[in-house]
């Protein structure tokens, strides 16, 4: 699966978890850019992504993400 396709699927997950059907995320998006992307929703985002792509992140990976692009890089490495 290419990076743009992963971004599309991750965007759908963000829309569902954050209840914002118009949300558009990019590789540069950070938590500061998205209303409601707080620590509790972050947990739900990680759970949903891990289920969707059938993978598991490490704590170190998650703590290292500075934006959506780095999150997607982690996904790409595991699928």
């Amino acid at each position: 699966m290419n990076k743009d396709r992963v971004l599309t699927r991750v965007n759908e997950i963000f829309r569902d978890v954050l209840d914002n059907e118009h949300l558009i995320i990019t590789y540069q998006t950070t938590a500061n850019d998205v209303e409601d992307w707080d620590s509790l929703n972050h947990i739900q985002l990680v759970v949903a992504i891990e289920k969707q792509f059938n993978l598991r992140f490490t704590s170190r990976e998650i703590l290292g993400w500075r934006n959506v692009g780095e999150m997607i890089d982690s996904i790409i490495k595991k699928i």
Partner: protein
Amino acid sequence: MIFKLKDKFQQTFIVSDKIYKGFIKLFNDNNPLHTQSPFAHHHGFDEKIMHGNILSGFLSYFIGECLPIKNVIIQTQQIQFKAPVYLNDEIFFEAIVDGIFPSINTVEFKFNFRNTDDKIVSKGKIQIGILT
């Protein structure tokens, strides 16, 4: 991680008069389905039915008191009510670890409540966080 996939937990509950009346006293839900047998009969039930969220209370007890650790918090919960529960029913609860997310210290359980006829009266999922 203290939990493993497919770990199973079981508990028996009774929807006692004390719980039933306590629920009404606390939340003031006196809907006639829960308080008037003739009304419940008219709508197809054998007796007045118990509030579904009494089962949510049992779920809270399970998470708070029955797990091997106490540093847990409920993050999400989904529950379906599939069949009526009546006063003094004995209810068998079972929860199975259905997902473990170590990076965020999160565990997901599938659960169900069954009555003495082995009928599922309620089922759902509950996700907890393990506080560090």
